[in-house]
């Protein structure tokens, strides 16, 4: 019996949302809730896949119609102006390890969903967008200075990426806005590449990652360390990296005294708790600048 067919009253609401997800018919709030649930639910993953197979069977039976013959030539002319991603160097059929949603979702990736949801939310709430947009310029400038360089886009050649990143940026800025006034510390890997930024707000502390390796959420965890000129690094909090690209993670532990350090570092530790001292080399670190 497929996941879609089996009844489990305790899971009924999620079953309904799984079908709505596959149909791309969820409201933004439901989409948000389900997106978070889906990552860890095998039953829902299977339900979405089952629904997708049914839908594909329906779609394949649509009567065929043809576009104008000119569309083919327009398409082929357009590809000369279309930038290809670096991933294209990977042979087809052997995709690189990508976001977890690529493994979970057959009908749409969580990233895609999140972007679409945020884009729709923006359309429906101009006031929210206006508020957030006032943060964009300042925060984006800070981030570029911090060295992440994540906002650089070729708007002419990759409109879709521009829309996606802009929407993603909006979501992150919403998180930043929720944090109140913030200070940022860029963290670089051993090659000097900016891979994360520690964002310290008055109400919460977050780590914005951009290229850190996705960890095994069962057996590994990232640990944020406070660094001083003298003494052992002090564990400040833990978090998971679930997105190999741009993402914002709240650091989940008591953060008192976090502003007393000269710098910060990250390690990827075995197990699900922070050790007293780092057991592995820092994967990224940075000094506080004022």
């Amino acid at each position, binding site marked *: 019996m497929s996941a879609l067919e089996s009844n489990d009253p305790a899971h009924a609401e999620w079953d309904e949302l799984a079908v709505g997800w596959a149909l791309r*018919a969820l409201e933004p709030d439901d989409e948000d809730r389900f997106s978070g649930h889906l990552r860890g639910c095998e039953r829902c993953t299977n339900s979405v896949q089952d629904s997708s197979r049914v839908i594909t069977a329906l779609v394949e039976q649509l009567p065929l119609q043809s576009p104008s013959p000119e569309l083919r030539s327009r398409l082929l002319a*357009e590809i000369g102006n279309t930038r290809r991603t670096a991933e294209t160097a990977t042979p087809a059929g052997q995709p690189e390890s990508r976001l977890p949603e690529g493994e979970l979702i057959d009908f749409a990736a969580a990233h895609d969903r999140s972007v679409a949801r945020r884009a729709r939310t923006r359309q429906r709430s101009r006031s929210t967008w206006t508020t957030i947009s006032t943060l964009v310029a300042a925060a984006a400038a800070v981030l570029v200075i911090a060295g992440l360089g994540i906002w650089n886009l070729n708007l002419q050649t990759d409109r879709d990426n521009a829309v996606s990143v802009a929407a993603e940026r909006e979501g992150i800025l919403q998180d930043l806005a929720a944090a109140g006034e913030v200070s940022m510390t860029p963290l670089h890997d051993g090659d000097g590449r900016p891979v994360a930024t520690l964002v310290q707000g008055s109400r919460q502390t977050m780590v914005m990652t951009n290229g850190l390796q996705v960890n095994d959420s069962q057996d590994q965890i990232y640990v944020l360390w406070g660094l001083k000129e003298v003494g052992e690094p002090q564990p400040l909090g833990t978090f998971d990296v679930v997105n190999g690209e741009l993402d914002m993670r709240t650091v989940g532990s008591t953060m008192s005294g976090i502003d007393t350090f000269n710098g910060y570092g990250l390690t990827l530790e075995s197990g699900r708790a922070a050790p007293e001292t780092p057991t592995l080399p820092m994967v990224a670190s940075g000094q506080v600048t004022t």
Partner: protein
Amino acid sequence: MSRTGLSPADDADLLARLASGESEALAQIYDRYHRQVFSLALRILGDHVLAEDTTQEVFLAVWRDPTKFDPAKGAFASWLLSLAHHRSVDAVRREESQRRRRDRLAELEPPALTGEDPSEKALDRLAGADVRTALSGLPAVQREALALAYFGGYTQREVAALTGAPLGTVKTRMLAGMRRLRQVLGSALGDLPSAGGVQA
């Protein structure tokens, strides 16, 4: 895709050539699938120009990054249709589509007066005995909810407004309808893997 008569190996070869930047491979993929993609887009958008634009977007997305298709999770054709659906729904929901959407909404509202079933409009031209049998076995309200969501591009709340049913009822109808289709089509679907991940 069943109606192409082509094997996954054919697609794999084309995708490998596409990954190496061979534009002729995209032309061949287009020749193979453009009618399916366009037909789905047209079904959802109801506008020939918008459907062509969306079709072009879909194939450009494949060109930009063919590795977004994961062959471990299903056939390329299924993934491509999923991508086409996503792009079409996004297009129909975009601001410039709202006027047409309102017009379509107005067209769909009269059923209560005329007795027409909007889901029939969406599904009445489907071919394929298995699918027709499966759909005909669904209660009308379940068929209606699924059709309005998938082919109409409406959200569950919009479907509820269109049909006059509570939102919770619409969600339940969609789940029940999908379960029924899955049961009836089970043998036809076989053990093939599901559609691959889409990152439009």
